[in-house]
């Protein structure tokens, strides 16, 4: 018995450094050029270097801006001008995969190592870095990926069960799904739209913010237009939005926009018209409740 207790104690001691290290896992904004908007909760902020990302953070880089964030394990993610991304999941004091939903713009993910848990979800495909570095550019109708080094897997968002496409160093993929066109070189058009900084290794500045954390500057509560993209995102992406922006439905302008665009996010119907979902008195008396009349579902 005593030996078992000792063994358990030894295992706990061994796990402590790992636990401590895991608790330190964060994603920190380490480089900003130009303004970048951060939407956290229902509030819009001006992002600053040193800010640690939280799950649910929405980032929108300005027209000529650049934002780079670094994971504590060395992975770096840079977003180019006009890039819009939602941090579906990021490590924030505890281990978690890094999942970003990107709707537009250019993104470079660098220094992924074997076992890295970082994914980029786009309207067209899901990109999982195995190791190395890739660059992603999203246009209106398709996405392009260049494997600068290493390997990645590209899975379909629409055709479940299909095998992912493997991209190796030097491959250039273009398509609106995971079965697009793979060539051996990036096209000049692709290179031309990349921010110049993407053509070089991303700088690492995490050491500056290792023991220093900044807070973003509060600007205002979000309007509907500022979060419209996310409210109208694919269902699996926008699922948490009603709970998140519920309080904004009290704003008349926000509510009016929600109502006007209800067909794009019908899950808001119970929040906007709760009375439709209240049990009727007659049905309450008879013991049966009339089912709510849901809005059109997409």
């Amino acid at each position, binding site marked *: 018995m005593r030996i078992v207790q000792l063994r358990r104690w030894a295992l706990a001691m061994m796990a402590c450094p790992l636990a401590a290290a895991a608790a330190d896992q964060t994603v920190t904004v380490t480089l900003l050029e130009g303004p970048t908007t951060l939407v956290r909760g229902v509030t819009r902020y001006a992002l600053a270097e040193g800010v640690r990302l939280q799950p649910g953070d929405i980032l929108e880089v300005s027209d000529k801006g650049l934002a780079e964030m670094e994971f504590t394990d060395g992975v770096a993610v840079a977003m180019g001008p006009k890039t819009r991304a939602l941090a579906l999941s990021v490590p924030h004091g505890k281990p978690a995969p890094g999942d970003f939903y990107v709707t537009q713009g250019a993104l470079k993910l660098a220094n992924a190592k074997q076992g890295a848990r970082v994914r980029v979800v786009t309207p067209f495909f899901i990109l999982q870095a195995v190791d190395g570095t890739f660059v992603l550019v999203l246009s209106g109708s398709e996405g392009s990926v260049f494997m600068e080094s290493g390997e990645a897997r590209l899975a379909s968002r629409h055709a479940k069960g299909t095998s992912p496409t493997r991209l190796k160093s030097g491959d250039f993929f273009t398509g609106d799904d995971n079965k697009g066109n793979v060539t*051996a070189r990036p096209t000049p058009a692709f290179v031309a739209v990349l921010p110049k900084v993407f053509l*070089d290794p991303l700088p690492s500045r995490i050491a500056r913010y290792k023991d220093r954390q900044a807070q973003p500057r509060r600007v205002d509560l979000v309007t509907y237009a500022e979060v419209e993209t996310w409210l109208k995102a694919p269902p699996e992406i926008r699922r948490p939005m009603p709970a998140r922006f519920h309080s904004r439905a009290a704003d008349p302008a926000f509510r009016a926009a929600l109502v006007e665009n209800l067909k794009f996010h019908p899950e808001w119907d119970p929040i906007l018209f709760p009375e439709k979902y209240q049990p009727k008195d007659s049905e309450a008396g008879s013991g049966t409740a009339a089912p709510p009349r849901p809005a059109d579902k997409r």
Partner: protein
Amino acid sequence: MRLVVKFNLVFLLVFLIGLATAGYVSEQLLQRNARDEIVLNARLVMESALATRAYTSTQVGPLLQTQMKYAFLPQSVPAYAATEVFAGLRKTFPEYAYKEAVLNPTNPRNRANDWEADIVNQFRNGLDKPEVVGERDTPGGKSFYIARPMQIKAEACLYCHSTVDAAPKTLVDKYGPANGFGWKLNEVVGAQIVSVPTDVPIARANAAFKTFMISLTVVFAFIFVALNLMLWFMVIRPVTRLSKFADAVSQGENMDTSDFPVTSRDEIGVLTQSFNRMKKSLVQAMKMLEG
């Protein structure tokens, strides 16, 4: 023949001999100096090209490795950098030509032609000289050249020149997989060659020679005039006057006049004094005869 004519004839003879000698010696010297200057400048061109290559391959190239995955950047190529720098130098030294002649180049533009290949092979076959200097005939005349071996001494050079698989894909896209690969460390792959038309040093030497000879002739002419004037005023004119006076005394004139004025203390003055003594002696002798 008058004294001044004799003097000028001798002077001209000496002048011509001196001018010819000085001309011959100076021409040889100037030709050699012009050639040496050309060689020195050519070496400077080569050293600057080597320095540019080293800087590009060790400092610039590594910084551009990631960018080269996206697009080929000729600025990362040492030969391109050296050629571009030389193009700038050529604005000041238009008569120089520079080529990095390589037996197996990446860019076909740099492939060694026949005579260049001969030079490269000399270095490859163990020629124990740091450089080769020579002249060759060209359609435009004789050409002077200096060549130095290009030897692979840095591993960084092999990044683009070892195997097709190791080279940047964008470089292979641009130049193909058949050129500029298979190089090895310490191998002599080509030669730096600086060429100058031989007319250039000859023209420089001739220009300097012409200037020198004209200057020498002007100096000689000045000396000629100065010597003639000196001869006239210091010798010819006083001797001529003394000669006229002596001539008059010999004809019985000027016997009672004062002595010929002594105006200098040099040989002419001594001659004048001697003449005056002789005149006095003559006058006394004539008086004794009459007396």
